[in-house]
């Protein structure tokens, strides 16, 4: 009898329970992020380990002069810390951008990669690498290390603006047109990127290949600064778009009936996600699956309410990319794999599993 009274009359989890579960998920996300951050800075080929971490930290803070301390400080502050932070911001940006796009397009499979933003950013970055030694040389030399991030950001942004121009008619943005135009632009950008590979020399080609698979290997504070403003803009905007995205899940007309300024919300969401994705591609190359797998996992656990989906995706996205980077560094140490390969190996089966076994959560009615 007791067990019977505990079971719900219907198979689904109570919505109140789901929300409680979601809030717990956010807490678990914070704890997991701290743990993987510690693991991330203590893994690597140069001998700084988990046990020597407290000493390296105190050395970094006290500014001790001994050679060993200086080495540990250098590894910690100039290599591992920026790499971990970069990974966390890239992961959070990609996952939140994915979650927002899926809400905006009312399509659980939408992703910034899908509407061509990532491809546009990648094309611009590849062009910078491939043409950097020829006619684009003066600009690339003038910008130095900033050339790649700026080019990728501009590529993502220009793609988004082209999309908006194509899809905006009569003062409204047609989502279906946006999606289809995005797929076409992604195909064009992909083809041009492929063509550019023919005009590169061997060293450039290797750079380009590794970069196009995504990697945090070149992490530096400069790169952290490159993504920081865009990632922060996106993350700090989360509370402002929860209502709009929840309303948009019912459709644009319903969102308007519920008091949402739909056109303004669409414009802001597309612009902020484009900027953050462009910046992420610029500093870490193209890392797939984060924007699609992370929001799905959060929705499966806590339901589709954006009050949980957005912060949950930010945290789990950061955790996932930092973990993937740790694995990328450990698996063939002292060499490392591109993180995009790890994400595809882990992400694609998870994604397929979602599609096949939890199809109910993916299919629109």
């Amino acid at each position, binding site marked *: 009898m007791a067990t019977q009274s505990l079971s719900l009359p219907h198979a689904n989890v109570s919505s109140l329970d789901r929300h409680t579960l979601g809030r717990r998920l956010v807490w678990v996300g914070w704890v997991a992020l701290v743990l993987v951050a510690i693991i991330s800075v203590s893994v690597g080929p140069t001998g700084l380990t988990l046990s020597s971490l407290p000493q390296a930290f105190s050395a970094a803070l006290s500014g001790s002069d001994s050679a060993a301390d200086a080495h540990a400080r250098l590894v910690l502050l100039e290599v591992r810390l920026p790499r971990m932070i970069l990974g966390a911001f890239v992961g959070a940006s990609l996952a939140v951008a994915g979650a927002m796009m899926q809400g905006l397009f009312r399509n659980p499979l939408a992703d910034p990669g899908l509407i061509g933003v990532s491809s546009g950013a990648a094309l611009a970055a590849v062009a910078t690498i491939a043409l950097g030694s020829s006619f684009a040389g003066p600009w690339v030399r003038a910008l130095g290390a900033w050339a790649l991030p700026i080019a990728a950001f501009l590529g993502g942004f220009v793609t988004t603006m082209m999309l908006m121009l194509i899809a905006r008619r009569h003062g409204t943005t047609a989502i279906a047109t946006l999606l289809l135009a995005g797929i076409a632009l992604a195909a064009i950008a992909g083809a041009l990127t492929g063509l550019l590979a023919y005009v590169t020399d061997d060293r450039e080609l290797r750079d380009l290949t590794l970069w196009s698979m995504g990697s945090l290997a070149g992490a530096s504070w400069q790169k952290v600064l490159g993504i920081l403003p865009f990632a922060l803009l996106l993350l700090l905007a989360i509370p402002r778009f929860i209502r709009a995205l929840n*309303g948009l899940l019912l459709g644009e*007309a*319903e969102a*308007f*009936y519920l008091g949402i300024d739909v056109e303004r919300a669409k414009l802001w969401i597309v612009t902020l996600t484009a900027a953050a994705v462009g910046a992420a591609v610029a500093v870490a190359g193209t890392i797939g699956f984060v924007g699609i797998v992370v929001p799905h996992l959060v929705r499966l656990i806590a339901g589709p309410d954006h009050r949980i989906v957005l912060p949950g995706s930010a945290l789990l996205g950061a955790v996932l990319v930092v973990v993937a980077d740790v694995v990328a560094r450990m698996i063939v140490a002292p060499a490392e794999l591109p993180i995009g390969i790890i994400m595809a190996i882990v992400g694609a089966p998870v994604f397929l599993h979602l599609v096949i076994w939890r199809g109910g*959560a993916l299919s629109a*009615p």
Partner: protein
Amino acid sequence: MIRAQSVTYVAGNRALIRDIDLELRPGRLVAIIGPNGAGKSTLLRLLTGELKPTAGRVLIDSRDMAMLAADHLSRRRAVVSQHTALAFPFTALEVVLLGISVPGLDVGNPGAHRLARTMLDRLGLGQIAHQTYTTLSGGERQRVHLARALCQLECGRVPPEETAILADEPTSSLDIGHQLLVLDELARQKENGRAVLAVLHDLNLASAYADELLLLSSGTVLARGPAAEVMKDDRLSMAFGCEVRTNHIPQNGAPFLLPQSCAAASADTGAYS
């Protein structure tokens, strides 16, 4: 409350609505009736502020709706659409709570949950509150959205006399028991002082519940007024393109009609006239 002043709406080069005046008043239920393609849903969407009229204006509390923010409107009018597809698996209760949380009203307090449960119970949905929306039947979905719209107005903190509820065929997927349940709820909202507008296909329901009927045909008003005036055989026959014969309830004289085959009706007429 909401007033359309000589409103015209043109899409492409076709006028869907031509020069219509209509006023929704507090405590009154207006039903729009008419054949398919008459412009009923278009007129409703013009009155919600979603569509902007090509000519004329729609006023809410004497202010032009086109000038007002979506947020301002959401506290004063709620809309139940004909079809609402939901791309993600919310439960019925969560959908109703969206009516409170999306307009930025406090959904965290227990009062909001109690209200949502009360509305679901009142519309006969208490048992399915925790079922996923995508597994609900068409009739259940319609009622979930009505519950959501009612919660939206209830939490808007605007006196009921300054609010309106607009429903596009709220009974189209319902059996007779639930049709009456929904219209009784709309009538109760009217008694509480709200202005109510419903697009209805069932002429008998319109006759039984509406204070005023608006008979539309090809985007213009063919007749308006109380059911006894609007539901005349010749007008209905002209609007719907088939022979219609109304009868009257002996007690109150309200018109009603029993459907009969158009073929049978014309054969009938041929024999006796």
